[in-house]
């Protein structure tokens, strides 16, 4: 269904080609669908995404549905409620292992292990094709991809590793896209000459920014440090952003009455483009991988979330450059002038009129960016920095193969998963590049 033969693809392509829609995006889609490899990759991406989302139902030591002592249970769903703190487990589930319960009837996931389930009978690197020991009366299934030293199932680890990889790729790139869109948009749209701001507004904004830094990092520094140290990275960031946004809004509100004073209201041109480009240049001068290593090593409590945020926070420059280049072109177009003539606010013009037409090239940067974020995460867990020890990821499974050379399944499968994922994102990126390249368009 996913991997169409040439004939089917051609039919789809033709149906897209002859569709009535002549908009920009439909042309891009048409171009993209001509590249069969890229379309395949997109479909494999859907499969991987599906695996990532439903990882709990593919590899889990809990049954999906079971009847025990005449009662029906849905343990996997129940686990979600327990994680949210809404429910608790019955005593019998806590005292006996899931796989050793005597169920009347049970539907297990295809892989009957969670990523961290230890199968003591099959520890010390059991090969998928070799002898595996199973006790009578348990619900344990075959280890399709073998086990590692402490008896954790490699297949289950791979399935749950998919989730980590996808999360890292998508979250990190979302962060990078947000930052990149912001900086790219303001530097491209305003350029060096278009941002004319009254003196008082510049002054108050700088003051507000400094005060926000002061209140967030000095007055409340320990609160934020404790939040981040306890793993509540998001709340820490939220506190910082709250101060920043609050004070900047206050500064801009204060501007409105103060602007009436003639000395303050004189307009000054801000060379925004130069400032942003200099900033990007500095970020680009930092060797990202080593910086990530250093930052991640400083954090005392490693977590995947932190890795995502760091990768996102350092890899936005490419997107910003793309957006800037597009907006430098778009801002000279007539329809932008028309919008300005209507008296729309600059924010509205950027957000509603300029940005939507600049987004297409960003997709390329995002596709390649996801690939490199996934690769970075795999690399970090491969060298064992920044990912918690009990988190099973593709990189951490691959790392285990260095402990025992005869365990070929640990060297082959996780690495292959990394390779496939990186490849499909690169292929999607390639396909988008071709689809968006006006030189290649007939």
């Amino acid at each position, binding site marked *: 269904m996913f991997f169409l033969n040439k004939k089917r693809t051609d039919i789809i392509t033709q149906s897209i080609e002859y569709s009535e829609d002549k908009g920009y995006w439909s042309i891009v889609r048409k171009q993209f669908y001509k590249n069969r490899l890229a379309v395949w990759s997109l479909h494999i991406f859907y499969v991987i995404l599906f695996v990532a989302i439903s990882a709990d139902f593919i590899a889990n030591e809990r049954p999906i549905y079971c009847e025990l002592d005449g009662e029906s249970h849905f343990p996997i769903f129940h686990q979600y409620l327990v994680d949210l703190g809404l429910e608790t487990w019955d005593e019998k589930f806590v005292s006996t292992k899931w796989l050793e319960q005597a169920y009347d009837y049970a539907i297990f996931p295809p892989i009957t292990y969670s990523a961290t389930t230890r199968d003591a009978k099959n520890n010390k690197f059991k090969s998928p094709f070799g002898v595996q020991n199973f006790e009578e009366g348990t619900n344990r299934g075959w280890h399709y991809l073998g086990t590692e030293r402490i008896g954790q199932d490699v297949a289950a680890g791979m399935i749950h590793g998919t989730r980590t990889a996808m999360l890292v790729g998508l979250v990190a790139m979302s962060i990078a896209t947000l930052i990149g869109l912001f900086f790219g948009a303001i530097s491209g749209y305003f350029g060096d000459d278009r941002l004319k701001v009254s003196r008082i507004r510049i002054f108050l904004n700088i003051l507000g920014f400094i005060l926000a830094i002061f209140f967030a990092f000095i007055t409340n520094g*320990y609160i934020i440090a404790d939040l981040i140290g306890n793993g509540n990275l998001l709340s820490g960031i939220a506190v910082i952003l709250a101060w920043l946004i609050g004070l900047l809004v206050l500064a801009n509100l204060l501007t409105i009455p103060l602007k009436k004073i003639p000395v303050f209201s004189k307009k000054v041109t801000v060379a925004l483009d130069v400032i942003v480009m200099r900033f990007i240049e*500095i970020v680009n001068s930092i060797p990202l991988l*080593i910086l990530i290593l250093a930052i991640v090593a400083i954090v005392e409590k490693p977590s995947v979330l932190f890795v995502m945020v760091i990768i996102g926070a350092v890899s936005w420059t490419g997107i910003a450059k793309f957006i800037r280049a597009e907006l430098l072109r778009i801002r000279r177009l007539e329809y932008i002038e028309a919008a300005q003539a209507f008296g729309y606010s600059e924010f509205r013009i950027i957000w509603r009129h300029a940005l939507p037409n600049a987004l297409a090239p960003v997709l390329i940067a995002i596709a390649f960016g996801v690939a490199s974020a996934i690769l970075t995460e795999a*690399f970090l867990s491969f060298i064992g920095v920044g990912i918690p020890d009990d988190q099973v990821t593709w990189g951490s499974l691959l790392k285990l193969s*260095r402990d025992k050379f*005869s365990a*070929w399944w640990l*060297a082959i499968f996780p690495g292959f998963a990394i390779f496939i994922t990186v490849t499909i994102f690169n292929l999607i990126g390639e396909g988008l590049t071709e689809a968006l390249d006006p030189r290649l368009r007939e």
Partner: protein
Amino acid sequence: MFQYIIKRILIFIPTFFVISLLIFGLSKMAPGDPVLVVMGGNDSEGVGQRSDLLNGEKAYAQVAERLGLDKPAFYFVFTSAAYPANLYEISKQNHRETISRLIDAYGNAAAVMDYYNTLKNVYYKTADIENARHSIEGTARNCMNDLFNEYEDGVIMFKLNLLKDSLATPDNGLEAIQGDWNDLIEKYQYLKDNPTKTELYLPTIRSYGINTQYHTWMFGDYPWFSSVDSSSHYRIEALSLEIIDLVPQKRSLNNSISKLRGRNYTIQEELDRVGTNASPDSLRQVLASNEVQIEEYLSNQKTIQVSINTLSAERDSLSSNLTRYTSKGFLRGDFGLSYIDRKEVSLKLKDALYWTLVMNFFAILISYLISIPLGVKSALWKLKGRKLIDSINTAFLFILYSLPNFWIGTILLVFFTTAEYSEMLDWFPTSGAQDLDFAAHPDTTLWMKFLDIAHHLILPIFCMTYGSFAYLSRQMRGSMLGVIRQDYIRTARAKGLSERKVIWKHAFRNSLFPIITLFSSIFPRALSGSIAIELIYAIPGMGQLALMSITSRDWPVVFTIVMFAAILTMIGNLIADILYAIVDPRVSFK
């Protein structure tokens, strides 16, 4: 254009300082107390007499001074009015942390300092008391040590009351500090009752002048233009050596004296017990001669003590006049000492850099040598419509490009370095950069040396090469295809130039531009790319050094490497920009 290059270099300098600030900030956020790491992690907390405590603190302060940590962190600090300006003078990091946490909670710096100083006084006073009941003394020391680290109200109150109750028990021997302890509790209560939290919201800027940690790290505190007068250094070292020689002599004299005294004591006892026994005279003789010996030893000991005193007086006077220098500074090539083995960071880097440079030199050379011709060739295949070979080549390059090098490295390591799978596959050594110990076998020829190293490095160099080779080839192919579509190529063909000339003289030269810009990303990529490979093949290069320093929290090494990588990236960018400007006349320099 000259102006452009000058401008480019001028931009380089502020960027460098911004990055150095970033890295300095990171190093200040690094967890753990560097002084304790250097001291080997043993802090003499709360054991021994007052003099022991003082000595422990002195040793701590000395290490802190040698590391340059006794200075304020930066030229100025943007902070709230609540924090006192001289907080950095408290030498122990955990005390400093506790104080600033308390200030953060209550805002009243004077009261916090009062509380801290009282606590410290009680601490010393407790150390002075000798015959306290053991259990109470233990409680007291534990409580105080905890209080030095505690900033949460509940815990502090618990500890304060715990010791208060213990002190109230009869006959504990610690009655002397009971009053001080109640005083301390009052001070803490005062602190809690008089918070001045508004001060926390008042921003202030404090300047600390030039003698700061950042300045010492970056520029050093050695004089720049005059050489340092090191004669007193040598004199101090010589004096210390002499003292070190004398101390055991004194100690052995001490031992002999106490031995003789013991012997005399037994003789005396014997004499007393026996009374008029057989040969008391001979015993008395021994006794007398021993007394004489003791006298002599005592006088010897006295002279030794006197000379030790004079020597140490001279040493102290010299060292009090001496200006101590912490570092020559990063800019003069002094990167500090490694926390772990006290080796100079620059020496460690030099050893590691050798292997990384060797591997990357070959990796970069090979990938450029193959990729440029292959890129041109594959572009020609596409143009000439040789579909099969073109698509095979593109797919091959694409797969190579997407293969993570740490995966390929692991696979090659697993399958081709041991006889685990088949005797036939044990081709390469498993780890290390060389087997032969060249220093131990001076007769190894250069050829054998080369063979040995090559045998070890083939797999790592392969892993480092293929990715960049595929990337470069794809870039080259892409830019060649882009150039060939240009009008001037059509013009060249129309002029009747031979195809060879069109390709190599017109198209090839212009398609080199992207490859030149890629040159900038090579240095940092080489450094970070070698981390995984060096880890897999256990090659003692920069990547492995970086990783090992990160896991063992050896921050001077880590931040020096980050700094180096940043400088290399910037230099790469600079070179690429300048090369681009030189090669491509269309680039405008405004």
